[in-house]
């Protein structure tokens, strides 16, 4: 199996060398060895590991969670159910975030409807007034 420098691995996996160094600091990858000149050396398995990390990121996993997935993958006693559990919990997190963002989007809908007259001067803008009012209410409660 041929050895890859960090630059070649970065090109193969379509990430930057800085990203690889960051992954290494986060404990996600490690060079197989170092050259006599002290350069990091990797192989094709390292590239597969990076593809794994990228795909997991696309599914919403954080680097800490990906580290856990990689740990599970390397554990002899682990089973598919362990990975599935992590995937289900990630889906719950995403669904919860979607719910929160939908609430925020609906709040914006209300403000946008209130601002039907776009030719009003900005100091009469109902959106800015509503946001200022919300802030004033919070200040009032603090006093």
């Amino acid at each position, binding site marked *: 199996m041929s050895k890859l420098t960090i630059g070649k691995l970065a090109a193969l996996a379509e990430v930057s060398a800085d990203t690889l160094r960051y992954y290494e600091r986060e404990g996600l990858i490690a060079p197989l060895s170092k050259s006599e000149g002290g350069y990091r050396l990797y192989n094709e398995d390292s590239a597969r590991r990076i593809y794994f990390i990228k795909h997991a990121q696309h599914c919403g996993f954080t680097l800490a969670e990906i580290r856990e997935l990689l740990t599970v993958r390397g554990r002899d006693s682990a089973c598919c159910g362990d990975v*599935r559990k992590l995937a*289900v*919990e990630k889906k*719950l997190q995403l*669904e*919860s975030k979607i719910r929160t963002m939908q609430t925020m989007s609906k709040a914006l809908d209300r403000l946008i409807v209130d601002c039907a007259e776009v030719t009003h001067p900005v100091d009469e803008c109902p959106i800015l007034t509503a946001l200022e009012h919300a802030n004033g209410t919070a200040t009032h409660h603090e006093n």
Partner: protein
Amino acid sequence: MKIELFYTPGCAKCTASHGDLKTIAEQTIDGLVWQEVNILEQIDHAVDLGVLTVPAIAIDGELVFASLPTSQQLRAELLRRRDGKN
């Protein structure tokens, strides 16, 4: 009183403890309703209750345990709720 246990099918950790917890719950509260909820079939309901980890337990529509409790913990919580209502 109603208990919902959210689980994922095939989760060995979930199924191993279900029976013990169900038994202790039914012994503790008369007329207890025990429901095992496949989270993949009712994910909206799980999100409504704030479930972010599995397995988890909700009591009367409130998420109480984000991971499986021991039998003693479940029994103590059920008694606290029962006595609080009386």
